[in-house]
């Protein structure tokens, strides 16, 4: 009897010791992981608070948040209204950083910077435009030496936020794409080969002459791939870069809904790169554990100030300052109403 009681006590002690060691748990987007892990280690150095993050994919992060396994999620795509209802408390979408999707290609002898309209881009990924010397492409790029090669499309085979941003963009600019394919983390691609991960798509484009694909900006830069210039809403052809992505977010502020579930693809403004999107931290509006809520609020606030400065070195675009102000207001609403109920509820656990 004594033995049993002792082992029971030991058993109960272990989890509480663990939860003390790991102050916050998160899961989700693999895209944000390099930046997020930098954040967590810097924040740990500063405050001693430990944050454990599993980069298991946005979808899996959302599921873990809904089941309450983690304290916060991170996602490259917004949650559906239906999913948001499944949480114990209302869920906040807090933009944490931004990523741009670069259209990369491999055409021997042709230089980087082939211009494309949204129609051409959609046509290529729909399989309507099959050759590089298609009339539409040649007309837009006079004087550029483009060989008459077959176009071979490369896309992601795994579900991903990059695909979500890209297909959301195509659905916005091409009615035919919207009707035939639509948007999502994984879609039924009309043409092309699938590669698992950004690195595989970059690898495909690097290897196969005549290929075109889409990857996160960092992969285009690091692999030194040629990238296409896509016409934005204002008729300009901005380079895909950290600055043009931030510009796109800045021009989205006026139309930004209060819950930040906004797309920033195809934004107006001459510097706005058209294919980019937010990665959101998903947090509950209320936590039963008031101390946990405070830890999370402190961390999120820090990520808006100090955290944003760490982005560019890792190829992440910082959020525009005017947006940061709005997000901070939203962060402050976590548990602001009645922290006392939280304390009572945590006793019950």
């Amino acid at each position, binding site marked *: 009897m004594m033995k049993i009681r002792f082992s029971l006590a030991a058993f109960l002690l272990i989890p509480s010791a663990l939860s003390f060691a790991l102050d916050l748990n998160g899961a989700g987007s693999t895209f944000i992981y390099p930046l997020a892990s930098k954040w967590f280690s810097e924040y740990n150095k500063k405050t001693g608070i430990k944050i454990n993050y599993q980069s298991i994919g946005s*979808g899996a992060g959302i599921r873990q948040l809904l089941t309450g396994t983690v304290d916060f999620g991170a996602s490259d795509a917004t949650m*559906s209204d239906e999913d948001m209802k499944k949480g114990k408390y209302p869920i906040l979408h807090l933009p944490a950083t931004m990523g741009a999707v670069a259209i990369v290609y491999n055409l021997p002898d042709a230089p980087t910077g082939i211009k494309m309209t949204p129609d051409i881009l959609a046509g290529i990924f729909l399989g309507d435009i099959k050759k590089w010397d298609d009339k539409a492409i040649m007309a837009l790029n006079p004087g550029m030496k483009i060989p008459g090669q*077959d176009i071979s499309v490369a896309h992601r*085979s*795994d579900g991903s936020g990059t695909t979500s941003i890209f297909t959301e963009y195509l659905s916005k600019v091409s009615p035919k794409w919207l009707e035939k394919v639509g948007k999502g*983390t994984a879609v039924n691609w009309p043409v092309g080969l*699938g590669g698992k991960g950004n690195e595989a798509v970059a690898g495909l484009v690097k290897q*196969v002459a005549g290929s075109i694909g889409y990857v996160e900006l960092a992969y285009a830069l690091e692999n030194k791939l040629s990238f296409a210039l896509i016409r934005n809403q204002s008729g300009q052809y901005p380079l895909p870069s950290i600055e043009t992505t931030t510009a796109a977010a800045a021009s989205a502020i006026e139309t930004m809904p209060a819950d930040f579930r906004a797309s920033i693809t195809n934004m107006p403004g001459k510097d706005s790169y058209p294919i980019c999107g937010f990665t959101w931290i998903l947090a509950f509006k209320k936590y039963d554990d008031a101390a946990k809520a405070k830890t999370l609020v402190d961390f999120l606030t820090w990520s808006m100030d100090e955290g944003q400065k760490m982005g560019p070195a890792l190829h992440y675009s910082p959020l525009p300052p005017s947006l940061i102000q709005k997000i901070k207001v939203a962060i402050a609403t976590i548990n602001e109403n009645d922290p006392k109920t939280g304390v009572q509820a945590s006793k019950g656990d």
Partner: protein
Amino acid sequence: MIRKPVSKPAKGIDPSQRTVVKLVRPSKPDSPIPSYDMSRGSGSERAAIPLVTGKPWGDRAFKNLTAGFAGLILLLAIAMVWELWLAASESVSAMGWHFFLTQKWDPVLDHFGALAFVYGTIASALIAFLIATPFGIGIALFLTEIAPRPMREPISFLVEILAAIPSVVYGLWGIFVLAPLMRSHIDPFLIGWIGKPLFAAPSTGLSLLSAGIILSIMILPTIMGISREVFQAIPRGTREAALALGATKWETIRVAVLHPSRGGLLGAVMLGLGRALGETMAVTMVIGNRPEISANILGPSHTIAAVIANEFAEATSDIHLSALAELGLVLMGITILINLAARILVWSTASRLQTAGDDS
């Protein structure tokens, strides 16, 4: 020195031990006899006494323990199928038979058809099977019948080492070595010499054929290893009898080695096939990940295991997850069917052999 550990396991397992020894290492004609002697020399009378007193609880406990282990495996299998079935129920009720009869896989429109994945899974495994079987059995024959004795162990060790390479390494090799090689040399050759419908342009190097080739290398050790065991299990006397009747080396191999080991070889090949069906990482890296059914094996394809690995983490809608679980169930079904078929084939050839008077 050897006696002590042998006497410990005691009398009860003596006969089985003898058969194990006989099965595993009969090619060395001298080995069964000393080991047989050894077990007899362990002192049957001495071991019998503690066994009688120990029987009531010791035997029962051991029996229950091992039965429990075996039962646990059964329970685990049932629990897995049950869980998968629960997870798949939404897709089963939404898609019904269309799941098996259509090939459109569209997570946006929530239409899920598994046919293209089933095709890719079976086709890639079949290609692997066609390539690896002659190589695997050939190497095993060479090692047991033809190669000079000092060569045998190093070569078989090298082949077996293939099994120890992680599949992601095979995948990387596939992307950086095999795919470019296929694209620039092998595919154009096949398109030019054989052509449609099996080999059609354009080739990207990422194809059903590339996946089959990678898989064939991965299952080679399985097929080679088991075939070798099977050949070694054939009594030396059978070979000597064939030689004594005036058979040439090749005739001896055909009549005295290959013929009686048909059942075992089938088992070897089927185990390899089973492994090929479930391989994920290496396949998804070279197959092109495009769910479509086409006779052109230089075109991209997709497999069940690959699509689950690809889409599971980012699947947000419930029905998408459910469809992936149903795919898992389908893969399990295919593997079980193939293993069953292998068992039945092995049984039937074994019984035919027994009635013919051979023993294996």
